[in-house]
């Protein structure tokens, strides 16, 4: 029965994965800068706590800390759905747009009482953006109107396989291997709006390839929990798939995450995390598009279980986040920072066989010297299933 249920959830995950793969969402004009807009591989619970990547005391599926899944009582699957509504102002251009995506899908399989294997797939960099311009050119003896469009579509994703191990009564450790994949497709259009001239469309495709490694640990005390994770890799390669273009390597950043949580009352938890990403390693690689900097993030929040519904606790979360983004927008003087306030709620379903988490965010990016101003609303929904 358990096997059948696991197969069912796996099939459902596969369907959702296919839906995700068929979409090309973009979450910011920053997709046009550097290697794209960074995406966070966290679920709705973490988003409700400010986007906290690690630091919670209970076993969770995580694409940041390979040790986080240690202690899961049964095989599980988490699928996260995310929808954004953005307002963006860059120079004299302003626009609103919406996106929807599955930013992260995770699965964990306990192997005995001390070992857990994890598998996850998440978006890392978003490279969907476009430029459009109406102009005219002189051909066939007349001035003919044209519309030029450049479209970048694709992004970098990461498949992570890992293991976690309950090393000591209060200490869990883990390690993981990241396989980077994805594609970047540039398409250049010129449409002649008169003169009966056939439009031209040319395209160039790169495939992203790379390998990375990660390690993490979690220490769980009675009222305090601490976590740390590090990930690093060699190079992220854009492998040219067409003649006339060349492949290029980018240095993958070292990423350090530390976080912790403390029970501040019987029914309330405070969590805080910090992150450092060494994106400056790729500064020279992306110097033509404004360079890259090391980026910090601080996120934290409070989770309270004071609220009850039908006799069951309903976790309520609030949080906030400050993030330095690694790439500069269109030659602006400063890099872009992001701030967000978050809130969320959770619900346990099916006698603990499933949980549903919902979060909302209000965020802002940029500023005058950053070349753009963006504000966004984001809703995240995570469904976790446990095969018990």
């Amino acid at each position, binding site marked *: 029965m358990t096997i059948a*249920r696991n197969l*069912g*959830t796996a099939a*459902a995950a596969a*369907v*959702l994965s296919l*839906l*995700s793969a068929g979409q*090309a969402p*973009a979450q*910011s*004009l920053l*997709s*046009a*800068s*550097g290697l794209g807009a960074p995406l966070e591989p966290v679920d709705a619970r973490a988003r409700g706590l400010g986007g906290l990547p690690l630091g919670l005391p209970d076993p969770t599926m995580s694409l940041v800390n390979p040790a986080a899944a240690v202690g899961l009582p049964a095989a599980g699957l988490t*699928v996260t*759905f995310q929808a954004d509504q953005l307002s963006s102002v*860059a120079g004299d251009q302003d626009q609103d*747009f*919406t*996106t*929807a995506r*599955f930013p992260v899908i995770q699965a964990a399989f306990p192997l005995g009482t001390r070992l857990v294997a994890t598998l996850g797939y998440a978006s890392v960099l978003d490279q969907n*953006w*476009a*430029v*459009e*311009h109406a102009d005219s050119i002189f*051909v*066939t003896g007349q001035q003919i109107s044209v519309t*030029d469009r*450049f*479209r970048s*579509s694709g992004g970098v994703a990461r498949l992570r396989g890992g293991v976690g191990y309950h090393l000591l009564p209060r200490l869990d450790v883990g390690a993981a291997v990241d396989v980077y994949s994805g594609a970047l497709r*540039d398409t*250049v*259009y*010129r449409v*002649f709006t008169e*003169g*009966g*001239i056939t*439009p*031209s*469309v*040319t395209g*160039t495709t*790169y495939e992203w390839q790379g390998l990375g490694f990660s390690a993490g640990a979690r220490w769980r005390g009675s009222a305090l929990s601490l976590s740390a994770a590090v990930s690093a890799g060699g190079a992220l390669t854009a492998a040219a798939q067409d003649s*006339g*273009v060349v492949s290029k390597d980018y240095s993958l950043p070292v990423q350090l995450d530390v976080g912790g949580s403390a029970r501040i009352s019987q029914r309330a938890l405070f969590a805080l995390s910090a992150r450092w990403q060494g994106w400056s390693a790729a500064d020279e690689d*992306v110097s*033509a*598009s404004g360079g890259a900097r090391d980026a910090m993030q601080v996120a934290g929040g409070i989770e309270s279980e004071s609220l009850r519904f039908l006799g069951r606790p309903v976790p309520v979360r609030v949080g906030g986040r400050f993030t330095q983004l690694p790439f500069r927008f269109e030659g602006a003087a400063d890099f872009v920072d992001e701030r967000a306030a978050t809130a969320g709620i959770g619900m346990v*379903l*099916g*006698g603990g*066989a*499933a949980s549903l988490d919902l979060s909302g965010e209000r965020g802002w990016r940029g500023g005058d010297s950053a070349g753009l101003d963006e504000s966004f609303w984001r809703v995240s*929904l995570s469904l976790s299933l446990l095969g018990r």
Partner: protein
Amino acid sequence: MRSRSLFALLAALAVTVAACSDETPTLSGPGSFPPGGQAVTREVILPAARFFQVLGGFSGYTDASDAAYVVVANQYGGELNAHALARFTGFPRTVTYSRNGASKTDSAFTYQESRLVLGVDTLATAGRPFTLQVWEAAQRWDANTATWTLAIDSVGEQTAWTEPGGTRGVLLGSASYAEAAGDSLVVTLSPASVKRMADSLSAGVVFTIAETGKRVEFQDMVLRFSVKPDSAAPDTTLNFLASPGANLTTVYTPEQPDPPAGTLAVGGIRSARTLLELDLEQTVPGCPATETCAEVPLSQVQLNQVAVLLRPRPVPRGFGALNSVPLALRLVVEPELGRVAPLGQTLLDQDILFASADSVLALPVTSLTRTLIANDSIPRTVALVSEVSGAGPPPTFGVLFLDADARLRIVYTLPARRPLP
């Protein structure tokens, strides 16, 4: 039950995603394009020597009896004379009418004054105003073989006109067409004229233009006539229509001219065609006009438009095309057959109408060029013909002469590749 609830949740999630629409953040303005991310379009004009060879010109595939129109001209262009010949059918031998509720048939009746209505193709007409004259034809003729000098030119019988251009009898009627008249001309015919036309021994009518320097084209004609039965009440008249049907042709002189050396001919009443060999696999500069670089084959660029440019030349003897000439380029698989080489599929990107006011004829061959680049086993020989859709009657009386010093215009876009960030 629990599994069903979980599945419903997953399904709801999937539907939620499917309902969302993604929009790509889009910058605007030339400054927002990444380097190399904007298309560069170029235009090159190649001389005839690089791509164009005339294999031969042929004519005589149609004659006036194939045309859906008739032409009447009087010394147009100083030389062209043309008369239209028509023999109307549909005259009754008896008429039937109703009197006091009873049907009556009478073989004795009297023709009334009637109207011959002709549709004027104003775009194919030169020289207004003009006067159209309708003469009784005084000599039998054959619509399929009649020429300016021969009334009948069939196997076993060859009869010359007593009067070249159609032997004329009495003048049946005439009408003036004003400078700004519409697309129809009405000739009023007396009862005696209609009676002569209705005679079973009638040879039909001959149409001429009274004034010199005119050329008029008629698309159709119909005789609306009335009769009064002798046995009917005085106020009883019966209306009928008579039309020439296939008994309609044009005789003209001189013959459609052949093109001088170095000139292509296409169309006209004799359906001239020219066989050409096109070498469209060319090379073009592989960089923007501001740079210097080697040429690259067309397969390495994006073709936006390829066109063969031809300049019209004057046509002598009054045979110039007055209206738009529909043109087609047809594949010729066996050019060695010359005049009788069968024509294959049409090759132009779209139908082309060459108007007499156009200074350049552009034959769009973008698709043909792409096909030739992709498949070098396709014949390069084509025929430039005038047709509406496939083989058929000659679309225009006038012929089009084109200078053989053609140009090949290639509008292409260089492959745009931005360097990676």
